């Protein structure tokens, strides 16, 4: 059943863009993938290890700015820039992790919030590097050919497949981690950090590795954001609200589950994109409402509950 769902999901992912020419639906699918990607990478640390970060927008912003700046000033290929964004995000995650993981529970969350605000303010004010609040703009993307076909960047299809590839990578990574020794360490940290340390687990190391992996993928996603929207400014990519939305996607879908962020992104992003047309930030009303309802009535998230109903897994 589980395998069947996975295969069906991937098959749908591959053929989905052929089903519609409607630009809105294409955009919607890309956004669902993008947020699945972010939710899944946040879930690596926030779900599996129970370390609720309110600062993941930092890595998104670093990825976006790295990709943009390498392309605009050094003329690096944006694909290389995206990779560099992921690597820089992961490198930045090292000191952040070593500092913030000295704190526990809500204190950790507050510290990540503070770090994210510091980075946002630096990006806003370091105008020589980031152009400050004016932001950065890419007008044309370079020619790329696959099997002698030049890719048409004006269409949304290439971005769809790019997002799909990244999302599959993120979900595969979460699945691999959940099956690995690291995943077991992270669960131990989540359930009882003192007992985990007493059994000899280096909890700081485990959490830092989870954060670095998570930051790497979010950095890649930042690069994708820059290429897809072609415009970034500090308040767009370093905003607290972005970090919070990642948290919401993972929690509403189901913490510490591989498929949770997919469900969370489908539910929340579909609502938000439909309502975005009607009233600008109205969709966040639903984010807040869903978050409260889920924590109150479905603490395991929508997917966490569904998989019991579908009896994919025996109740613990």
């Amino acid at each position: 059943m589980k395998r069947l769902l996975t295969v069906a999901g991937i098959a749908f992912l591959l053929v989905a863009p052929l089903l519609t020419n409607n630009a809105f639906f294409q955009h919607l699918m890309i956004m669902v993938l993008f947020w699945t990607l972010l939710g899944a990478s946040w879930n690596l640390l926030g779900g599996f290890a129970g370390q609720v970060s309110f600062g993941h927008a930092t890595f998104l912003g670093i990825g976006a700015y790295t990709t943009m700046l390498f392309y605009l000033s050094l003329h690096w290929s944006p694909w290389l820039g995206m990779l560099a964004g992921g690597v820089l995000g992961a490198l930045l995650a090292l000191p952040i992790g070593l500092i913030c993981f000295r704190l526990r529970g809500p204190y950790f969350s507050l510290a990540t919030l503070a770090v994210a605000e510091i980075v946002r303010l630096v990006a806003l004010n370091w105008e020589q590097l980031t152009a400050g609040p004016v932001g950065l703009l890419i007008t044309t993307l370079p020619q790329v050919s696959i099997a002698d076909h030049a890719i048409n960047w004006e269409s949304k299809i290439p971005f769809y497949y790019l997002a799909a590839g990244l999302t599959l990578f993120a979900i595969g990574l979460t699945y691999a981690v959940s099956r690995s020794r690291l995943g077991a360490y992270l669960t131990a940290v989540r359930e009882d950090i003192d007992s985990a340390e007493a059994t000899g687990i280096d909890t700081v190391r485990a959490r830092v590795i989870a954060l670095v992996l998570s930051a790497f993928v979010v950095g890649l996603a930042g690069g994708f954001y820059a290429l897809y929207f072609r415009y970034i400014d500090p308040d767009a990519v370093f905003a607290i609200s972005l970090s919070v939305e990642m948290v919401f996607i993972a929690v509403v879908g189901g913490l510490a589950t591989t498929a949770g962020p997919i469900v969370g992104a489908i539910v929340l992003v579909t609502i938000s994109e439909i309502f975005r047309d009607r009233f600008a930030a109205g969709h966040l009303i639903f984010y807040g409402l869903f978050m409260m309802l889920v924590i109150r009535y479905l603490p395991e998230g929508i997917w966490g509950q569904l998989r019991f109903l579908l009896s994919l897994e025996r109740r613990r």
Partner: protein
Amino acid sequence: MEIFAQSVVSGVLTGSLYAMIAIGLTIVFGVMRIINLAHGEMVMLGMFGAYWSYTLLGIDPFLSVVIWAPAMFAGGMLIHRFLLKDVIPKGELNTLLYTAGLSLLLANLALFFFTGDYRTLNLPYALMPARPFGIAVPIPLAIAFVMAIAITLGLYLLLSRTDVGRAIRATAQNPQSAALMGVNVLRIDMITFGLGTALAAAAGVLLVPSLYLYPTVGEILIVKCFVIVVLGGLGSVPGAIAGGILLGLVESLGAVYISVAYKDTIGFVLFLLVLLFRPSGLFGVGRS
């Protein structure tokens, strides 16, 4: 020297209002062990309440605090009774996320109904600052400062002299023992949450003549509030007062002597340093 005195004065005045917001957050934490991320939205609601009662009914914000503080006290009790009470036993992190949801909900409902315009409230007597000893003192901020002191004193008397106050302090020290001594802990939780909300809203009402007003203003205020309570020690009322004044001073002096653009950053760096090296607060009174 004049510049120094000027920034000390404005730092203390703003800091006193920060302190008032932070006291609300810190007593709620002290009693219930929850960090209320929606606290900034309570300030925002107070600000909007005062704004509308001034623009529509012509009631001076410094008078309408008498309406809005009790109204938000009742509102806070209702929020606790119907929204929070059943979530708090689910754990610290769940409550944190739940209040994050509440914060997003309230801020965006306000955005939906009031639009995202920046508003200001100009009081006729507030156009020119008073100038005692050659230092400019904005009149609305000075009145707000005096009223903040009065409200804080009132809270101090409530906590130290009344039965409810004793019950609140007992619950903060140890809920189980308090319950054994006959304190209705749930009722005290509800009253404390109401008090915290009322303090935040009252600070919002007092701040309206001096601050830009927009629906997401709570986001910035709550972050400042965290800085303050961590500086002073989470759960400590005197710590929140000292932390509030300290942050006000750091911001105003930092803006003058370091950089206007980075004045908020200084607060955050201080916050991180305290969180790392003195998690029980600068004065060592909080519980980490």
